[in-house]
């Protein structure tokens, strides 16, 4: 059992949890993730670790309500427990002196990009962060990103806050103004990561993405999270989750992630039926 010590909504449907997990807190490095299971009949879901506090023995994760499990998770509060939290899994982000780095976070991806941005900044990289969200109220961790970046650019799809447009618009702007980018790290929805990869491919800017395929054990045992990288199978759980964006087959990733769409809808419908999503809305 893993106790939730803090839980707060960062935006509608996006919640930050601090969880007691001393073993994981001691070992976590930016870019790594945990697998959670909420209750006995629950599924296992991978979630990137946002930060850890080895002294307190806690880790924090940021979760967006998408399907049944994430809705259920986001209905939990401080004092409640998770049945299983296992990690830290995956290879950590490469933290070296690159020079100028663009960190791009889309939606809840900002929370996953934050620890890597902080670590890169700490060792002396120049960090330019681009945060994108659908609309104003879904922009998260802007202040946190400002603290670890030399410059922050924000976009919203609908223009309700900051610049209207997509993160790739800002990336183009950076390139146009003559920034020499040594590395781009993009974390967010697959279409966003794919679009970033297309922008940087032509310019041969090294670009890393953090992939989120379907996963079960997270230790390399099942092979369900295999992604096609450079035409070869790689397991996101042990070979990743970060990969060279220019070598990833995003079409295969998108398609494989849709494998259980019907079943996911069944679960979600059933969940809505029994909860009517009141729990979450009433707390906002």
């Amino acid at each position: 059992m893993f106790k939730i010590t803090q839980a707060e909504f960062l935006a509608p449907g996006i919640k930050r949890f601090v969880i007691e997990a001393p073993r994981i807190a001691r070992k976590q490095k930016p870019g790594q993730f945990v697998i959670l299971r909420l209750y006995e009949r629950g599924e296992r879901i991978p979630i990137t670790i946002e930060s850890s506090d080895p002294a307190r023995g806690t880790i924090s994760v940021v979760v967006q309500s998408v399907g049944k499990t994430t809705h259920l998770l986001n209905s939990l509060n401080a004092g409640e427990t998770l049945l299983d939290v296992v990690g830290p899994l995956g290879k950590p982000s490469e933290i070296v002196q690159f020079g100028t780095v663009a960190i791009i976070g889309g939606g809840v991806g900002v929370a996953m990009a934050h620890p890597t941005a902080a670590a890169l900044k700490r060792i002396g990289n120049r960090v330019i962060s681009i945060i994108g969200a659908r609309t104003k109220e879904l922009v998260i961790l802007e202040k946190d990103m400002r603290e670890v970046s030399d410059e922050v650019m924000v976009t919203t799809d609908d223009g309700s806050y900051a610049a209207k447009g997509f993160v790739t618009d800002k990336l183009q702007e950076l390139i146009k103004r003559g920034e020499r980018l040594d590395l781009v790290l993009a974390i967010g929805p697959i279409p966003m990561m794919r679009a970033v990869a297309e922008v940087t491919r032509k310019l041969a800017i090294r670009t890393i993405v953090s992939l989120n395929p379907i996963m079960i054990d997270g230790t390399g045992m099942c092979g369900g999270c295999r992604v096609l990288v450079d035409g070869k199978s790689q397991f996101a759980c042990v070979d990743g989750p970060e990969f060279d964006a220019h070598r990833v087959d995003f079409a295969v990733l998108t398609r494989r992630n849709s494998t259980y769409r019907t079943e996911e809808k069944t679960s979600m419908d059933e969940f809505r039926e029994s909860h009517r999503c009141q729990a979450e809305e009433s707390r906002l």
Partner: protein
Amino acid sequence: MTAISRSPNPLNLKERIKLPRQAMPEQPALKRAHEFTEVNLGYSEELARQEALRCLECEKTTCVDNCPVGVKVREFVSLIVAGDFQGAAAKIREDNALPAITGRVCPQEDHCEGSCKLGKKGEPLGIGYLERFVADYEQRLGVHTQVTAAPTGKKVAIVGSGPSGLSAAGDLIQKGHAVHVFEALHEIGGVLVYGIPEFRLPKHIIRQQVDYLRTMGVEFETDVVVGRTVSIDELMNDEAYDAVFIGTGAGLPVFMNIPGEHLNGVYSANEFLTRINLMHAYEFPKYDQPMADFRGKDVGVIGGGNTALDAIRSALRLGARKAYIIYRRSDAEMPARQEEVKHARQEGVEFQMLTSPVEFLSDENGWLKAARCVRMKLGAADDSGRMRPEPIPGSEFDLPLSVAVLAIGTTANPMIQSTTPSLRTNKRGYIEADSVTQRTTRKGVFAGGDIVTGSATVILAMGAGRRAAKSIHQYLTTGQW
């Protein structure tokens, strides 16, 4: 011939030989093919005594010699004849920490029963069935072995809660050592839980066997991926373990590297079985982990081992219309247990032998629609001594399939090796360990089971666990490496 002196068996040898092997009561094939409930129902007391009477009580117990953990077969069988079932269970437990499990999944034909003299002319003694009977009897009774050894003050960490780890834990706790088992998944049992289906090895049996070890004092900790959550070095230096046993199992699934392997509907056997067994996907949506809908669909499993048969029989139970085993060699080379092959045939599995897929074909939505296969013929023997299958040119054909499962083996998971300095591995990435002492190249660290040998069986892993326990005990008591 006369009855053997001091034996409780009233029959002479001739009479024993005449007795037929008692069949295992099982669920009717057509009924069970759609359910996950256990196929074999187990002997009654009457059947067990009848079967036990067949034992010839040989002077030279080849059955014991051929058992990887050395179960005292003759002794426990005569206790059954005497009606002392509890005594028989205790006798097995002297050598085997998981009798209810091995009684169900051990390939007895390769070990005890394979060397039984009765089998020379007729059928061998049903040793596995008898073992299962007494183990289940003991469970019903709820009795437990008491640890009598005085605490040694030594701590042993066991990495992985599969058959080798549990077996080592059972032996070490009885020697008075503190034993702590780390498991990466959320349930104890390793491959027993994620790999072997309910209809062959019910989960409650594994839980009972684990609880048995727990009552003896073994501690279990789930959700710890050694190599990530904590390293071997940290276990020894920071957590003060005096010795570590690594029994992490086989690891990464092998893919064929043929076109179409990334299509939706193509699974590794590990994923397919983990979804069903560990995550209960067959009970979706009562359980949350989903599985593709198999009803009315055609499923093919590539491979000829127990894992392949577990997968295809699971697919049948999930409602598959056609269920194929696609194997590149012939019947004779299939590594699966005979009983599983028999059960699969009874349940309606079709065997496409001497056949191998060369490509998976996609429908318009990126889902599997067929496997392009080629027929094989057997050529000269390969390194394993089996005849090497070779494709027959021009024999390609398309087998319509909605789901394909690859059960063609596994390779070493490098997670521990890569985070443990001075732990030597062989060229295939498995941990190097002495075949008798199970010692690795790292002082205080022992290893056994599939992470040393590559994919094998439950009982071979248990054998390695026992040897490791013996040698760990020696190391802890003498301090000699």
